[in-house]
Structure formats: C-alpha cells, structure tokens
C-alpha cells in the first residue's frame, strides 16, 4: 500500500528549507501524447530525480496556460482523457512503484462537473496527495478545501509577483501543502533567465509565511533551476519538458532534461 497524503507534500519541500538545494517537481499532462505513453513518461520522470510530480488534468479552455501546454492538453482531450481515466492512470502510475507525492493540477470546472466530494474521494483512492487549481483562488475554494482537508489532501494555492501582502497571508492560511509562486505575471511557457524581481518576490512572501515555497512558470534550463533552488524549496518545470514529448526518442529527451534539472536543483550543474 502507498502511504500518500497531503502532509507528505509539505514534508517533501520542507526537507530543503534553508538549504541551497530544492525539490524538483516536473509537470506532465495525463493522457499526453497518448494515455499509455503518459504513464510511461511520468514513471520515467519519477525515476529521473523528481521529488514530487504534478499531473495535469486537461481542460478545454486552459486560460492560465501558454501554447505548449494548451496543445498538449488538447491532444490529451482528443485521446479521451477525463477525470475518471485520470484516476485510472494515476492508479497505474502507483502500481508501477512511483512513491513520490502526486499533485493533480486541473481547472475547476471538470472537478465541479465530476462532483467535488466524489472527485476528492476518488483522487485519494487513486493515490493523489493534493491539488493545484489555477482558477480557484483561496476565497472561492471553501467547499473543495474542506473535503480535501477531511481526506488529508493538500491544497496548494498560487501567488503572483503582484499579489498584495493581504493576499499572500490569505493564500498562506489556506495552503496545507506549499505555495506555488508564479515567477512572472503571465501564462505557462518556457522562458530564458530568472526574472530580476524574483528574489524580492520571494522575500516579500517569506515576510508573511513559513509555508514551503516552490517557483514555476517559465523555468526551462538547469541554470535557471539552480538559481531558483538557492532561494526556495521547490522548482517546477512544465512546458520545457512537455515540448519534448512527441517524436522519435521523446521519452529519452524528456528524461535527459528532467535529470539535468533535478541535478541542478541539488547543486550539480552540467558543464
């Protein structure tokens, strides 16, 4: 049996508190490029140094996502992905021996359509440890958050560089896992470099909370990952991996990048 629950999420990041290193959390859309291939890729990411895994549940209108993840999740939908199949795939991923905390990232409407309580129960049963829901700010999360709390699922809220001190406190209070810092005002997508105001953003959040912090959106290269790892507890990479997900040798390319990102978050940079 897997012992998965929300506390493992905070714990996985907390290990890196005060360290120059960080947890590495790759994102992968369930059902992309095919249902089976996504299980293989997620399992390979787990073996390539992921400390936690963020699994995407596709939505027809992903308004926080850039072109790479839009295209991938559209493909996943075309492949027949839905919440029920997502839980099947997650069970399969657990069955393959993946032990890391699994976070389900999805927009709110498919969760509502499935039924929030049933969604939480079935997610827990499948082996999910928590949720990231980009269009559900803390003040709207009440009903889902209370069921999640009952089941021990971690709720993880997002913060942006323009979040006010009041909003940082609100998100910190509602978060039972980690705070997801969006590196820039913008949508997901691979970018170069580390935003110049990221350190100030992190410092501002630290002033208000002791929750573990992870940074995502725009992280694509090991150098970026290393720099970010030195100031927060987690580094999240999505589009840079997802864009390698099709074509010949896709799996090997995804795994290679994931491995070097993982190593970068642990202080080892490729020459």
């Amino acid at each position, binding site marked *: 049996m897997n012992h998965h629950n929300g506390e493992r999420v905070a714990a996985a990041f907390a290990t890196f508190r005060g360290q120059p290193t960080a947890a590495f959390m790759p994102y992968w859309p369930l059902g992309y490029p095919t249902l089976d291939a996504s299980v293989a890729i997620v399992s390979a990411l787990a073996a390539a140094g992921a400390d936690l895994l963020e699994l995407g549940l596709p939505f*027809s209108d992903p*308004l926080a996502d850039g072109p790479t993840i839009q295209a991938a999740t559209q493909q996943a939908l075309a492949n027949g992905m839905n919440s029920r199949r997502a839980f099947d795939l997650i069970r399969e991923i657990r069955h393959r021996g993946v032990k890391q905390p699994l976070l389900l990232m999805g927009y709110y409407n498919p969760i509502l*359509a499935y039924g929030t309580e049933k969604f939480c129960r079935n997610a827990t049963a499948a082996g999910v440890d928590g949720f990231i829901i*980009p*269009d559900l*700010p803390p003040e709207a999360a009440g009903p889902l958050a209370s069921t999640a709390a009952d089941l021990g699922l971690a709720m993880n809220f997002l913060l*942006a560089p323009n979040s006010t001190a009041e*909003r940082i406190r609100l998100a910190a209070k509602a978060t039972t896992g980690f705070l997801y810092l969006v590196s820039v005002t913008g949508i997901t997508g691979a970018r170069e470099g580390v935003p110049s105001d990221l350190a100030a953003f992190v410092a501002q959040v630290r002033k208000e909370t002791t929750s573990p912090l992870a940074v995502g959106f725009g992280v694509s290269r090991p150098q970026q990952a290393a720099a970010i790892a030195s100031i927060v507890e987690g580094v999240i990479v999505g589009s840079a991996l997802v864009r390698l997900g099709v074509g010949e040798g896709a799996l090997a390319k995804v795994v290679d990048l994931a491995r070097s990102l993982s190593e970068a978050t642990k202080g080892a940079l490729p020459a």
Partner: protein
Amino acid sequence: MEQQRDESQLPDSRGFFGPYGGQFVPETLMPALQELETTYNEAQADTSFQQELEMLLRTYVGRPTPITYAKRLSDALGGAQIYLKREDLAHSGAHKINNALGQALLARRMGKQRLIAETGAGQHGVATATAAALLGLQAVIYMGTVDMARQKPNVFRMQLLGAEVRPVESGSRTLKDAINEAIRDWVTNVRTSYYLLGSALGPHPYPRMVRNLQSVIGREAREQMLAADGPGRWPDTIIACVGGGSNSIGIFYPFLDTSSQMIGVEAGGLGIAGGQHAARFADPKQGRPGVLHGTYSYLLQDEDGQIALTHSISAGLDYASIGPEHAYLRDQGRVTYTYATDDAALDAFLQLSELEGIIPALESAHAVAEAIRLAPTMSPEQIILINLSGRGDKDLDSVMQALRQREEEKHESS
C-alpha cells in the same frame, strides 16, 4: 446617473447573485480585479466622472436613442403593439458603446494606456476601438478567425479606428477562445493593460459594472414609454436577445421593479435536439451551472465538464455561458428565457427590414423573432418593447450566404 436601486443587495460584496457569479480566476488577476472594483466604486461616487460619461453619451454616442413604434410590423402580426428601443442608432452601431466608453474612462482613470478586448460579432471590438480612438488609448482586440470571416466589415472598421485585431486560432475560433486569449494577454500585461470585457459576464466586478453601464438603456426606456411620443405606459412585455447578456440586462434591470414581463432570447442555432446552438437554459443535457471565464453560471458543457462547442448564425450570441445575473433572474422566475433558431432569426431579420426599413443585427433579430411569435397571442391593447441592440450592416455577408443556402435546400427538396 449610474446609481442604481438595489445596488447594495446584488451582487453581494464577493460578486454573487445568489449562487452565481464570483471570481474564479488565476491569482495574478485577483489584485487587478480588486483594484478595478475600488476604482469603479470611486468613479460611481465621483460626480465629475459621471458627468463626463453622461456628456459623452449625449454628444458622442447620440443618446438618448429613440423608441420607435413598429406600426407596420404590429399591424401585420395583428396582436400586441410593438415598440423598438433603437440601440442600433447608437454611435458605432450597437449598445456595446455604452459599456466600452464607460470602461475606457475607468481605464484612463487607472492610468492604463492599453485596452484589451475580445469580440464575437465585432460590435464590442468596434466599440472598444472607438472609445480608444476618442480617448487616445491603444486597443488590442482578440477575435476568433471563424468570427473574423463572418464579420469582415467589423474587422476593417476596427483597423480603421486604429486598433490591432489579433486573430485567435485556438479551440472553436469564436468568442470563447477570443476571451481565453484576451485573459492570457491580461495576465501577462496586467500592470499596464485594462481588460475591457464586453458583456455582463466574467469575474466580479464585471457583471455588475457592465449591467450598470448598460442600464442607461432601460432607464431611458422607462421615461420614453411615458413621454409624448410613447404609448403612455410601460410595456407588458420586454424582449431582448441574450448572448453574454449585456443588452438584455441593460433594458431589464431598470424595469425589475415594474410589472413588465421579461423575456430573454437565446440562440437556438439549428435546434436544441442536435446540440448545435447556444441556448444554455434550453438544453437540459448540456446546460448546467459551472465555471468558465471567471464566473459560475449556466454553461454548455459535456459530462466531463469540458466546454461544449456552440453554434449560432449570430456571432454575438455564439457563446457557451451566460451572465450570472441572468441565471439568478431565471431561478427567481423574474425573467423567462426562450430561444430562437437561426431560421426564425433570419425570417425576423427579413421581416423587420421589409416592414419597418430597419435592418437589425442578427443578434437583435432573435429578439424580434420572439416578438413575432408572441405578438399574435396578445391583444392589440398590449405592448411589447424589443431592445433592438444593434444594426445589421455587419451581417449582410452572413445573411446573403444563409439565403443562398435556403434557396439551394428548396431546390433540392423540390
């Protein structure tokens, strides 16, 4: 003036009309929405802001728009007397300018030089481009490529007005996808840009703000119906088309405390049974409450919560969700919602053109279609008021094509 009855009640402080509405958006937008709400509240209380808006509505938009008695149409139907609130005569050709101008003034007040907007039929895009030109602001308009093809004249109009029209290729390439792209732009440029949402939907405070700005329609109509040129009393029935729901809430809202019956007309497309429509309330299979574009309301979706593709002959009604206040008014039983098919709207388009010399927008033709259905069941002493939300020049291509198709089908079946 903007101040409204019941404003203290709905939406509540978190933007809910009963269970509908709210703010379901990425965190990056939450500070922007709070800033917008604060600015809007200040502007509502600021006499000089209200005076400038009123002056521009009068001297630039041409308000008040008249009420026209549609005598020949009424006679032909042989029932209720039909009056038209002539939003088609507002500058830029539709009611959309009432909202665009008000929000553009807000953007200027907030120091934002760049306006972002989505558009379906192109009327909101044109209105935004117009307001931007008037106030010296930059406008970026997102429009699905399907809509660009069927509303070509409006694309060119926006460009003439100095706006940049950005084609949207994602999803169904219609209004829904244009809103997705507009929101993505807003998330990215939130510090410098103002999102000028065109309908009474999206996250709080937009549904409230757009309703209040569009309520000028109903406030004028209340007075005009009692004035010398009017019938001398308020209508028995008010009819308006409902896409997102801005022209309809604009005429309904000021009449909510009267005994007038109200009917919102959704796009019935090719009929409800086949699923090719945008009638959120009429299709129990696909239409259920859910979250799209920041608000909780009725939504056409599949059983997995993926947003359904919609169809309407009219680009402005071709949208999967409906403003949250409409969902509330429907639950309350205060407003009745029905639909008109593409065919009925096309017939109404032709009939109003021939009998009254008024070419309506295909959107507005849906409201006319319901009046054509309903009027003969009413007595000649009764009064229907239609909100004629826009003019039909933009639709000539679509109508020509639809008429040609009709001819071909007639030949095939004979």
